[in-house]
């Protein structure tokens, strides 16, 4: 008789910490913001250089672009993430309520069907 396979522990996500403390793998929205920030930095810096041929100033524009694009993406992504968490919490509560009150006078579906038939 074959032995039952042992449960395998889920692999931990490797953490990449920028500057030693920002865990981009496990922080929601961090990887997305840093990647778009890097892209924005390259586009801004290279674009400035193409127009002006000034290396040092283009590097400054690149750094400024990185900071601004990263911040912008970060706030946008975190706002959407917060909205998503609220929706998930509402959905979880509604599922719990439905399981608890199904068939009783407090059943939300019965109330909804009652109001629509009226």
């Amino acid at each position, binding site marked *: 008789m074959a032995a039952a396979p042992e449960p395998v522990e889920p692999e931990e996500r490797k953490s990449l910490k*920028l*500057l030693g*403390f920002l865990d981009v793998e496990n*922080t929601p929205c961090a990887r997305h*913001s840093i990647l778009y920030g890097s892209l924005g930095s390259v586009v801004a810096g290279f674009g400035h250089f193409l127009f002006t041929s000034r290396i040092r100033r283009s590097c400054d524009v690149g*750094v400024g672009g990185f900071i601004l694009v990263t*911040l912008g993406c*970060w706030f946008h992504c*975190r706002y959407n993430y*917060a909205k998503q968490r609220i929706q998930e919490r509402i959905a979880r509560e509604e599922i719990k309520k439905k399981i608890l009150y199904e068939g009783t006078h407090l059943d939300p579906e019965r109330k909804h069907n009652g109001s629509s038939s009226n």
Partner: protein
Amino acid sequence: MAHAAQVGLQDATSPIMEELITFHDHALMIIFLICFLVLYALFLTLTTKLTSTNISDAQEMETIWTILPAIILVLIALPSLRILYMTDEINDPSFTIKSIGHQWYWTYEYTDYGGLIFNSYMLPPLFLEPGDLRLLDVDNRVVLPVEAPVRMMITSQDVLHSWAVPTLGLKTDAIPGRLNQTTFTATRPGVYYGQCSEICGANHSFMPIVLELIPLKIFEMGPVFAL
């Protein structure tokens, strides 16, 4: 509990801790960008060929580097204050437990529905069973229900202690002659560990806190209600 060499926060077991982790991520991203900017400025300072030492007028730059940090501080302060006031909300707790710090153990009193009082000592290494956690496990855990608001009244019988459970985002000082209050709602069952967080003598590191969070149905069948 924390794993070996863990630097970051533990996973959240209460809504307040979820908010704290969110705020921590937000502050860390701002800190990262400031560090990046400072490192770049340092790099430029070290690699410049400019050698003029004349003090020059730079009103615009000075205005920018005064207003910008103020804006950054406001961006950090607003979420911080929001969470600070959230932690002070009292949302009609269904259960109150008293926690009294001693040198060097905790006493817990469940007096709402009876007179259950017990001490919680750290398990000495010689008494550990296989699978027990050294310096963390105790002889009597604090058993609480999940998804029920709980009020903890914390005080001390001798010196300062602090009742802390990181995964719930709780840390409250136990001060002799004073009753401090904290409330929390746990969102998932499990066993959660904390340690005394105020220096209180030789065995300050050896008076841990262990919470065992169980479903309400099972909690109602337990010793608290059987008294």
